[in-house]
């Protein structure tokens, strides 16, 4: 394709900035916040596949990442190796995703939201009550992080680097996915499902595989979650956790690649940084969300693009000499 576009330069600068960020910050507390932003960004990217590209709003996704996190914690507690635990956690996440998809894809719209919400609550209830596996209220602790290639992930920087690699892979996977024929088919089922069937597409199956991809990314974020906090308990699977990730997707801009990442940054920063100064941080988050809905209903990223373009056009119009107006006068 084209050699080097401004877009490529911007992407390269962003990646370099993300790599050097922990050295510039140089405080474990803030590096850890950056890690959380990245792990939630992976989660939001996963949910965005469904919300933004398939037009299916899910309120049960915390159940999917939670199952993966619990899977890893359970297998580690049972004495399995990290590799086995990670593969097992992802497999558990995908298995539950398939169940979610099979049950919820019978519907769209509000009904879909309600079914995913109910399924998420079932998983949350299981986490509370299936004590022999989940340890109920007390949750499960994970004593050690893995050490891929002999590099321990105990330090904030090492964990950040690993999370960054996973995050970049997730972004790349999403970027490739949405530009693919399957991605085009998926947005087609979002906009005109009837037409898509008449054109020969298997609408249900397209949505199913999109749900699986979304569940995979959610499960990956669940694995990052369990290794970051080294602890999982039922609140991580609650409706509020699902709603929080949905808030990230919608506030940043559903159906864009950058939107969920910006949304994840916004929510995590308000939750962790602003909450240190403002005790009613939930109120702040709510106020910001209301402001986004009022001024940029499409989300921060597309909204900013729209407003910047409008401002640019306005500036251009003013800098040009006055145009002759159409008022019947001939020049």
């Amino acid at each position, binding site marked *: 394709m084209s050699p080097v576009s401004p877009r490529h330069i911007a992407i390269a600068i962003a990646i370099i900035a993300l790599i050097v960020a922990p050295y510039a910050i140089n405080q474990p507390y803030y590096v850890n916040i950056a890690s959380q932003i990245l792990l939630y960004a992976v989660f939001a990217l996963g949910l965005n596949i469904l919300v933004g590209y398939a037009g299916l709003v899910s309120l049960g996704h915390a159940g999917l990442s939670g199952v993966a996190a619990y899977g890893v914690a359970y297998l580690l507690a049972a004495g399995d190796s990290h590799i086995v635990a990670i593969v097992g956690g992802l497999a558990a996440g995908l298995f539950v995703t398939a169940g979610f998809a099979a049950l919820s894809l019978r519907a769209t719209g509000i009904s879909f939201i309600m079914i995913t919400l109910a399924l998420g609550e079932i998983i949350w209830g299981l986490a509370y009550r299936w004590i022999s596996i989940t340890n109920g209220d007390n949750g499960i602790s994970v004593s050690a992080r893995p050490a891929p290639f002999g590099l321990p992930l105990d330090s904030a920087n090492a964990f950040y680097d690993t999370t960054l690699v996973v995050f970049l892979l997730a972004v790349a996977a999403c970027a490739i996915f949405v530009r*693919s024929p399957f*991605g085009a088919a998926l947005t087609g089922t979002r906009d005109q499902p009837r037409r898509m069937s008449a*054109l020969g597409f298997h609408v249900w199956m397209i949505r199913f*595989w999109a749900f699986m991809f979304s569940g995979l990314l959610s499960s990956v974020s669940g694995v990052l979650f369990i290794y970051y906090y080294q602890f999982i308990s039922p609140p991580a699977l609650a409706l509020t956790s699902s709603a929080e990730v949905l808030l990230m997707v919608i506030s940043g801009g559903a159906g864009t690649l950058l939107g969920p990442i910006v949304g994840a940054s916004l929510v995590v920063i308000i939750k962790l940084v602003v909450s240190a100064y403002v005790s009613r941080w939930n109120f702040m988050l709510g106020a910001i969300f209301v402001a986004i809905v009022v001024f940029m209903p499409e989300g921060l990223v597309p909204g900013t693009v729209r407003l910047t373009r409008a401002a640019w056009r306005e500036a251009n119009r003013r800098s040009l000499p006055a145009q002759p107006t159409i008022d019947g006068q001939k020049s």
Partner: protein
Amino acid sequence: MTALAVRGLNKSFGGLNVTKNVNLAVEPGERRLIIGPNGAGKTTLFNLVTGELSPDRGAILLFDRDITRLPSRNRAHLGMARTYQIITLFPRDTILRNALLALLGLSPLRWNPWLPLHLQRDLLSQARAALGRVGLEHMADRPLAETSYGEKRRVEIAMALAQKPRVLLLDEPFAGLSIDERRDVRELLKAIPRDVTVVMIEHDMDTALDLADRITLLHFGEVIVEGTRAEVVADPRTREVYLGE
């Protein structure tokens, strides 16, 4: 062999029988016009034939193959394409991408989640060719939302033709068009080769009359008259339905 056969088809919504014992036999290459006043059940018949609705009774055969219980998508793969009376396109996409989706629907590529769609040269050139057939190639990259109603109608037809159908169902292709646009679309439809069987619904008889080999008149879900153009026009029942005496 008939291209499209409908046998004893019935469909009701609650107590309303919208399709009553309808029989049709469309020969390969034929141009069949289905006319009838508002509410005659024309679009319902199309929805039954394309599989968007399933009939209560009766059978639908495509080239002698029973497709009555086949989902829409499979009928598309067997060579059936349709256009919609109410424009049913992808408003967020460009015209080209609309045409691409039509081609993708029948291509195994549609399951591929990693190849970049914008580099599929073969598909792109086919999509441009399909738009060329309806005279929209020059505006292929324009977002659909920025096109006129008449252009959208032509995109509908381009998408159906792009699929190289054996049986093409056109639901009021002239609806809402100006006189000039009607003439253009008529020329377009006349140019469809005879290896495509065309079944067309038209509310307004005058516009489409000269395109038809045979005409079926529907009224309250029933076939009232069927025959050649001259027969149907001359039939007193046609006048009764259309003029009410």
